[in-house]
């Protein structure tokens, strides 16, 4: 029998506010242990949490960016559990009246992964287990999080990967989080079950906790899909449980047995008052959002006529798309700009983090100037390309490298002279070409281009050379 994978995600994203959710301690990553703490975030009796206004604003932006509905009334609840990562023995979170309801993430195959809700909550402290003892650092305790809870709409590992990537991309675009999975500012819990293909009924699910890379998410899901399928095929049943994925062995193992299954006894936090969100505030925040990647991508394909692949590369990070938009202003063909960026500039921003920052020596205005020279026919493509390399090396503008005499083409007579000179200088290439080595002609054309400082028309030069030597 064929089985289908069904998965839903709970994604925690740390918000980039300056201070924690309920106190004025810094949210900076790292720091000496227990130095970003105060009586509020270590839960001393008699302290009172006060909600950071910016957390609400960031969460609303996140909600708008994934098409969620912003609640008019939201409340904070206590989630009770006894574990040393929480000093108070409860986490302040939202269950009964979360800030954002619904929403979706649209995948490239057109499927919409629906969101159940998004809520705000505080992060827990960091535990270091050593020789059976536990060392607790509360610097991270109280750092604001949003938790994005999806419906079980994901049907494949590729969809799961794309879902996480899309969330990461959009949250970075709107500037609410850096979403660095390796630093823990984005973490996923994956709920996964299997069912016979075509069945409507959901199978029993397991939950894999705290996944911190997309690669591991894929591996863990693959393992769990196989494990559950094998179990059912051999007549067994999946037990609902919480699992941990072990990167080293590539397997999942049980974290909690059924006997101590969590019962969080949620109730309204009496220390925190109701959050009322006015529609004016929602609209003001909507107006602050940048153009979102999916909209940009559609615009690049629709308005600029870019191939989808180019549009995706250029919208992956906000910095690249903004660079591209500026460089395109008033040019004849956005595709030319795209080619320069993808072909030449990307070679200098090799890593993903380089691409994300996109700190390039050449400004988009300088690239724009170069493309306009090309548009006007004053320079040829080869010269433009080599000039861009020099611009990228130096940070200088195009006109630093192109003189008046470089502009305009090479006339018929000059081209003939250049071709003759190239033939004379490269007898071996001529010989090779005559012996049927087609490629040898490239060396001759290259010589013409070099001596004309890129001004000559390469296609015309090739034709002329062929004419001369055959």
């Amino acid at each position, binding site marked *: 029998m064929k089985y289908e994978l069904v998965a839903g995600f709970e994604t925690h994203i740390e918000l980039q506010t*300056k201070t924690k959710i309920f106190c004025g301690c810094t949210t900076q990553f790292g720091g000496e*242990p227990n*130095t970003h703490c105060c009586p509020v975030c270590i839960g001393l009796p008699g302290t009172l949490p*006060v909600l950071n*206004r910016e957390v609400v604003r960031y969460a609303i932006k996140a909600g708008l960016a994934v098409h969620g509905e912003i609640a008019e009334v939201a409340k904070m609840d206590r989630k*009770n559990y006894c574990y040393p990562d929480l000093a108070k023995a409860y986490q302040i979170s939202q269950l009964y009246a979360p800030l954002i309801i619904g929403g979706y993430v649209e995948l490239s195959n057109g499927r919409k992964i629906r969101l159940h809700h998004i809520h705000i909550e505080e992060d827990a402290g960091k535990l270091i287990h050593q020789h059976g*003892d536990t060392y*607790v650092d*509360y610097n991270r305790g109280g750092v604001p999080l949003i938790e994005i809870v999806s419906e079980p709409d994901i049907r494949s590992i590729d969809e799961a990967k794309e879902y996480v990537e899309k969330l990461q991309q959009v949250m970075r675009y709107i500037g609410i989080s850096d979403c660095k999975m390796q630093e823990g500012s984005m973490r996923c819990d994956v709920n996964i079950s299997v069912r016979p293909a075509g069945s409507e009924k959901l199978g029993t699910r397991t939950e894999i906790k705290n996944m911190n890379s997309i690669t591991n998410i894929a591996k863990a899901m693959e393992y769990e899909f196989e494990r559950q399928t094998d179990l059912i095929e051999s007549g067994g049943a999946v037990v609902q449980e919480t699992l941990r994925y072990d990167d080293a062995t590539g397997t999942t193992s049980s974290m909690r047995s059924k006997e101590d299954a969590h019962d969080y006894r949620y109730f309204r936090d009496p220390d925190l008052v*109701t959050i009322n969100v006015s529609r004016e505030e929602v609209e003001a925040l909507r107006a602050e959002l940048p153009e979102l990647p999916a909209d940009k991508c559609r615009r690049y394909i629709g308005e600029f006529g870019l191939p989808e692949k180019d549009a995706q590369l250029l919208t992956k990070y906000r910095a690249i798309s903004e660079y591209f938009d500026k460089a395109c202003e008033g040019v004849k063909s956005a595709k030319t700009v795209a080619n320069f960026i993808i072909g030449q500039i990307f070679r200098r921003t090799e890593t993903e983090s380089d691409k994300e920052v996109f700190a390039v020596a050449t400004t988009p205005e300088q690239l724009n100037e170069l493309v306009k020279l090309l548009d006007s026919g004053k320079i040829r493509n080869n010269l433009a390309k080599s000039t861009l390399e020099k611009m990228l090396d130096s940070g200088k503008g195009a006109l630093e490298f192109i003189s008046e005499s470089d502009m305009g083409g090479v006339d018929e007579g000059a081209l003939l002279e250049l071709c003759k000179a190239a033939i004379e200088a490269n007898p071996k290439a001529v010989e090779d070409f005559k012996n049927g080595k087609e490629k040898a002609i490239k060396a001759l054309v290259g010589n013409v281009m070099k001596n004309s400082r890129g001004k000559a028309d390469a296609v015309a030069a090739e034709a002329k050379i062929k004419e001369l030597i055959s």
Partner: protein
Amino acid sequence: MVTREDVENIALLSKLFVPEEELDSLTQSMQDIINFADEINNAPASDEGFDNINNLSNVFREDVVVPSYPSEEILKNAPEQGEDHFLVRNRA
């Protein structure tokens, strides 16, 4: 109806040890508390707009960093500490 199992479960979740001989009396106490809460729930009241005693909403702080406490102060009340961390011993 509160059962002995409910009390045992709550004790487990709260990491409390409850001796067998106290289970019955605790179960009765818990039932009394629940009954009292039910009594309050049944009291006639209009539930219009009541949220909290001060009728407050939207109490916020601005996102401005204030200095944290020195770690010695933070750790001062820790039952045990080690390497500037709160230290939780494995009881098992």
